[in-house]
């Protein structure tokens, strides 16, 4: 599994398609923290709103870096769709957690307000939860579940916007609300964390089920 993840990583790095989402991420993160971003937890809520769509985009890039034909070779070589899909998810989760870690640490360096370790940890978990939801959405919007790039973009946009429309609904809305109001952060993170993990596993399972039907 490690060598499969490494192969997917090397391959996606060669495509350079990861560059646009990463530039967007760095640019917005820079704007958010260029001046005083306000109290730490509401500021983290702001970066959660950023991390979520960027990790969707990055996951779609990782899922579609190989074209469909080369993916079939990878599937056969790896020993089945389940392993290939699991590797795509694993790499996307690693990338998303990387985004979350950066977003959690940047304000510690740039902001003049105190960022105690407990707050940074809370911020990281919140960012990680939103990033994981992004991975789940990305897996649902990439191959083999959605095979055409146009539909992929539409579905990803719709799912990203949908989450923000539903206010305090888990898994993202409740995290944003609790961070903004500094109210019930731990319980919101627990609920959303469990939901996010289940969502990612479910989306990966769906890809495993759909792949061999479409293949």
């Amino acid at each position, binding site marked *: 599994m490690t*060598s*499969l993840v*490494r*192969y997917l990583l*090397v*391959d996606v790095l*060669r*495509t350079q398609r990861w560059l646009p989402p990463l530039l967007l991420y760095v640019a917005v993160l820079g704007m958010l923290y260029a001046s005083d971003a306000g109290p730490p937890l509401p500021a983290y809520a702001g970066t959660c709103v950023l991390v979520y769509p960027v990790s969707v985009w990055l996951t779609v890039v990782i899922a579609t870096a190989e*074209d469909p*034909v*080369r993916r*079939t*070779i*990878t*599937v*056969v*070589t*790896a*020993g*089945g769709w389940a392993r290939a899909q699991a590797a795509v998810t694993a790499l996307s989760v690693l990338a998303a957690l990387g985004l979350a870690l950066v977003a959690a640490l940047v304000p510690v360096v740039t902001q003049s307000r105190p960022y105690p370790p407990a707050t940074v940890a809370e911020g990281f978990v919140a960012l990680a939860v939103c990033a994981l939801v992004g991975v789940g959405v990305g897996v649902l919007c990439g191959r083999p579940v959605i095979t055409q790039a146009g539909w992929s973009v539409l579905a990803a946009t719709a799912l990203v916007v949908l989450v923000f429309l539903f206010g305090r609904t888990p898994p993202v809305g409740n995290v944003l609300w609790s961070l903004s109001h500094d109210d019930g952060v731990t319980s919101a993170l627990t609920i959303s964390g469990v939901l996010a993990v289940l969502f990612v596993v479910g989306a990966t399972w769906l890809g495993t089920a759909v792949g*061999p*039907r479409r*293949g």
Partner: protein
Amino acid sequence: MVRLDRIGKRYGRGPWVLRDVSLAVEPGEVVVLRGGNGSGKSTLLRIAAGVTAPSSGRVSRGPSVGYVPERFPTGVKLSARDYLRHLAAVRGVPVRWELVEALGFVGDPSAPMATLSKGNTQKVALAQALHATDLLVLDEPWSGLDAAAAGVLGGLVASSEAAVVLTDHHGHDVPGAREVALGAVRSGGVVIELDRVGEAFTLISSLEGVFAAHEVGGGARVEVRAGFSDGVLAEALRLGCSVRSVRS
């Protein structure tokens, strides 16, 4: 080893691409699938390799499978060396670059595969599959290869310890290979192309053994079941037609 047990495949509610196909290939055995365009050869190969799940029936195969698709994609940014190295690592076996060299690879092994010619890309695609030890599934493996590489591939396939299933449009010779016909099997059907048919067309199309006849210009293309071609030819000549070609 691979065992397909009464395989059927259809996409959604579409027509059956394959129906009730059974095939078993033992280790060291080579099976060449024959059939016209659209007879389901590639689909059967994808099912054998495990890319596609059959709609009905069962498949069992060994764990180490190698697959070469009909067309290896162009525009791959990885280099040939990196691609082979990573895929061998995924299998957990040491990379065998000598397979690529045996096939007569020409080009820069550390340049992006997108810069390689079709034939050299095909050699890399073949080499990654030849790392497998249980089953080789090769869709038109000879496409793009020059004569020398084609000969080497024939040898590699014939001497492989894995079970081999392949398709081939060009009639390459694999010693000891078993042929399996697929699809709306016109097994042994003969296509006769005639000129100067004129009014004899209706007569010819009603001859015994003719299952399809089309007028083409002033001539005709007649599809005949095996065993009836001589009679049809003799009758066509007697009626004053000229024979342009006979193919089976």
